[in-house]
């Protein structure tokens, strides 16, 4: 299994799975921003910190929150 995965690919994947992107928020003058998603069941807001790459552990936790638990087996394991 890889340790990190491209962030943009992850964002595209969860949108393709049906999770709605609510907005992108930037924090003042810092380089950091968040992508705010609605989970698949529409009940939970999931705040994802933007980055070039993210670890598989972080992806797993985001997918748990997004109700996309099986996606890590389909896309992020080798």
């Amino acid at each position, binding site marked *: 299994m890889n*340790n*990190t995965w491209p962030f943009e690919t992850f964002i595209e994947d969860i949108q393709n799975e049906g999770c709605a992107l*609510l*907005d992108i*928020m930037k*924090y003042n003058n*810092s380089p*950091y*921003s*968040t992508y*705010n998603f609605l989970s698949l069941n529409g009940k939970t*807001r999931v*705040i994802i*910190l933007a*980055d070039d*790459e*993210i*670890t*598989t*552990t*972080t992806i*797993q*936790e*985001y997918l*748990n*929150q997004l109700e996309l638990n099986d996606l890590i087996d389909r896309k992020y394991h080798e």
Partner: protein
Amino acid sequence: MSKSQEITIDISPQGINYTYQIRCKQEPNGWLSCYIPGYNLFYSAKSENEVSVKGDAVTALFFKYWVEKEGYRAFLDEMRRLGFVAWSSQSHFSSNSEYSKMYKGRKQHGILKATTERINVPHSFINSSQMNRQTVVSI
């Protein structure tokens, strides 16, 4: 074994003064996977310095999102869902009436608290290292 810690959010017209804890798990390639109990936030970092800088940014954006985008009532709903209780600054105990006052807007300030020992830590972070932070965000 991790030590239990109180997470405090002090809301006032000047902003939100809050504490949080970061749990970190080192990955085989040296990266760090991070978890913020109570707020239920996750992110990745390349170094220990990046852990705290990103922690401050993602928690500040958490408050900005809920208060500015979703609104104050939705923010309080989310904090209740996450397990925070409302505390009286005068009597120093929690009660349902404190949340009621905050919902009705009779209070321009309020204190919310959660305890890390009551939070179910994700399996990946059970044996992780931890650091404590305190910061302020203007809303």
